[in-house]
């Protein structure tokens, strides 16, 4: 499933679209940035409520396929700008991390 397919399936808000054809190979949900750096796999859709500039840096370092801000959490204007210049996909949903994880897992056929 690609990023743009995920957006369509879950009706996600697109804040910044990077590589819309990037394949989503898994998912990871955590708000502790160093935890994500150490544990997320490249290609994961990363679900978090942390929306600052470091979220973007971590997404690049961990090479996640997209960031999904759960529960309509806020994102700093600086972070949006950095995401635009670096081509990092930032999406948003009113759903919480549990619901998003479940639905993405179902779409990826891992649950």
């Amino acid at each position, binding site marked *: 499933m690609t990023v743009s397919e995920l957006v369509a399936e879950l009706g996600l808000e697109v804040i910044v679209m990077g590589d819309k054809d990037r394949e989503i190979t898994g998912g990871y949900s955590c708000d*502790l940035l*160093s935890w994500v750096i*150490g544990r997320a796999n490249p290609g994961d859709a990363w679900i978090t409520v942390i929306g600052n500039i*470091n979220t973007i840096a971590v997404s690049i370092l961990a090479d996640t396929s997209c960031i999904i801000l759960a529960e309509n959490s806020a994102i700093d204007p600086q972070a949006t700008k950095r995401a635009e210049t670096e081509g990092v996909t930032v999406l948003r949903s009113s759903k919480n991390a549990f619901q998003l994880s479940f639905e993405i897992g179902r779409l990826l056929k891992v649950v």
Partner: protein
Amino acid sequence: MKLHYEVPGDDFTRAGEASGDVKRKLKSLGFPPDVIRRITIAIYEGEINMVIHAGGGVADIEILPDRITAVLADQGPGIPDIEKAMQEGWSTAPDNIRSLGFGAGMGLPNIKKYSDILNIDTEVGRGTTLTITVLVNPEHREMHNHNH
């Protein structure tokens, strides 16, 4: 190639500049993605630690064909118990920092995990210097390993 960066003490918006710039340089030099990933993660964690825990510092990066070495030096408070600090989950990050997503106590363990050679020189009241090396051919790592 040698690179030098000043890491500001309180500015989270600029933390990550050194690792981002090193990443671009290594990419254009054609280093393997895994090598780039490991050294940039280690530099990022070190940079962030200097911002949060040490009031800033400097990063000096040396890029050689077979290795990349990053020296991250600060004149902060130092680390009183380095064994504790190296444990996953140990953190003294204050609440306002935790609300930004830091404070998992995973930064130093990540640096250890992703580097081939790590040396930590720290003294309370004087500061901390991390010397991090990532080898392009890590199969040679035993020969070089002088970890503390």
